[in-house]
């Protein structure tokens, strides 16, 4: 992907997701993740309608003009986005790939965080931690994150969610808001999830494609497994095989739900042909209640 196209794409995602975060999530994100206490931030000129109790008399006396103190909620929260970049994310039968949807969700969350003065960090993982971008503030940082989300090429294509969670728990000592975005086609992350969830405010966002739930009957097909890269012929006409796939999908689903419920973390499941803003919004609303 050349730079021009990449920038264009970053721009497109920025416009789309910033609008979302401005209009929809401005309040919801803020109130979902609260900081601790109020802290003085600056003084500014008094304006009509300001609370007179907030006037800073010392400054007013010095400058012979009324000034008031401005307090801000002490937030300085850290938002950690953990993104699964394993092969299985490069699948999508509808409008977009799972990975594209993840990118948009991440961008939305990042912009919401930046607006609320939070730091945003990013971890790419497959069966190991592929890339770690330390948390920082600012719009340019967010744009960099989006660029990485679009163009990052993982070394490995397998999945190990537990490994990524262990890595994160080990280095992030302060409490952080964590979003794990993956298809959760894995069933070995329960313990790591428990540990990570104890310290951090953790949410899993599971993106899945309806074709994963229901293998369509397309006859005898060559299929490439994105995780192993192997091509094998699959007889999708076999109803037994299709029900096997449904069963496997249901297993992963159950494991995911149970794991997140038991560890007290939030979970959110989005089908790729659904609208993610609506899903995010309802999730935030549910949390702030």
């Amino acid at each position, binding site marked *: 992907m050349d730079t021009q196209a990449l920038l264009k794409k970053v721009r497109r995602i920025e416009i789309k997701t910033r609008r979302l975060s401005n209009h929809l999530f401005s309040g919801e994100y803020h109130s979902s993740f609260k900081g601790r206490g109020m802290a003085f931030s600056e003084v500014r000129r008094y304006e009509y309608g300001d609370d007179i109790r907030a006037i800073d008399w010392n400054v007013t006396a010095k400058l012979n003009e009324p000034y008031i103190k401005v307090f801000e909620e002490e937030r300085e929260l850290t938002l950690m986005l953990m993104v699964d970049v394993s092969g299985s994310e490069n699948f999508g039968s509808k409008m977009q790939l799972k990975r594209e949807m993840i990118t948009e969700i991440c961008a939305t969350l990042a912009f919401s965080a930046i607006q609320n003065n939070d730091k945003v960090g990013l971890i790419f993982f497959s069966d190991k931690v592929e890339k770690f971008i330390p948390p920082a503030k600012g719009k340019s940082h967010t744009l960099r994150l989006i660029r990485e989300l679009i163009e990052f090429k993982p070394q490995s294509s397998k999945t190990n969610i537990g490994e990524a969670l262990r890595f994160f728990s080990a280095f992030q000592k302060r409490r952080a808001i964590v979003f794990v975005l993956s*298809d959760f086609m894995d069933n070995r992350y329960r313990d790591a999830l428990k540990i990570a969830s104890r310290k951090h405010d953790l949410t899993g966002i599971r993106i899945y494609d309806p074709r994963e739930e229901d293998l369509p009957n397309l*006859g*005898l097909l060559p299929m490439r497994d994105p995780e192993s890269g192997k091509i094998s012929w699959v*007889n999708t006409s*076999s109803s037994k095989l299709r029900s096997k796939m449904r069963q*496997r999908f249901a297993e992963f689903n159950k494991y995911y739900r149970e794991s997140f419920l038991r560890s007290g973390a939030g979970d959110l499941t989005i089908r790729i042909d659904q609208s993610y803003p609506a899903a995010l919004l309802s999730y935030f609303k549910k949390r702030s209640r």
Partner: protein
Amino acid sequence: MFDYEFQNPEFLWLLSLLPLLIFWYWWQGRKAQAEIIYPEAEFLAHQKANRWAFLHRLPAFLRILSIALIIVAIARPRSAEENTRSRNTEGIDIVMAVDVSGTMLAQDLRPNRLEATKDVASEFIEGRPSDRIGLVVYAGESYTQTPLTSDHKILRNALKDLEHGLIEDGTAIGMGLATAVNRLKDSKARSKVVILLTDGENNSGEIDPLTAAMLAQEFKIRVYTIGVGTKGMARTPVGYDGRGGYFFKRLPVSIDEELLQKIANETGGQYFRATDNEKLSAIYQEIDQLEKTKLQEIKFYTYDEAFDLFAIWALGLFAFEVLLRYTLLKNFL
């Protein structure tokens, strides 16, 4: 079935291109394939329910097989039948005079004299493909069943259809021999032979056997005489039972051996006595030996082209492949 030879065996070298073709198919299958990316493909591939997936190779396999068959068909396989047909430069004309009188149904030969004679004579005809042979039957009188012919198929059919009761009963040896001689008298063959077969004594007809023998001698016809019948008693039919069968009675066998001997001697032939099937068969073989013709062996081959078999199979497999491709193994890529 597989002893084919090929008319254009050089085309079989094309078969050596088949491994190349197989490789090409394999390569195509690997490289230029539009495969679907599916997260759990490997899991699915290892399921038991996926065991028929190997059938995706079937169309390519059928295609290669039909190409191989086409190549073989192009090489023109054929089964060759080597025929050594003997052409005698100087043909022999043979007339077989067969007695069909009632006593020929006597069962001292199996199943009876007439049937045994028909079998053996048929073999005899088969063994002499290059001679012209005629068939004369006689009982109370005589007639020509088949004139001299080289169409031995007709001859053998005529022989097969011989039955007792076609003509008035009796044994007119003289008439039979005379008719046979009549058939041979205009023959231009170097060698002329009559095989006279009887089982009794001359008891009817207007021509004396010896007169007929003299005729034969006149026309330089050799007469081999065969007396059929065991020595002693034989189960001989004596009357109709009214249901299409016969009453049998054991009667003494009386063959006028003296007469037959005489006929043979006068014409330069030989007299034989057949007391059972084996003996009869041996006699015919002996006559066969005695009348050896100068043969000119001509070898020639009749080919049975078999390419159509291969072509049909190739077409069938190809059709099957196409059918599979668009029905059972159809996919939506």
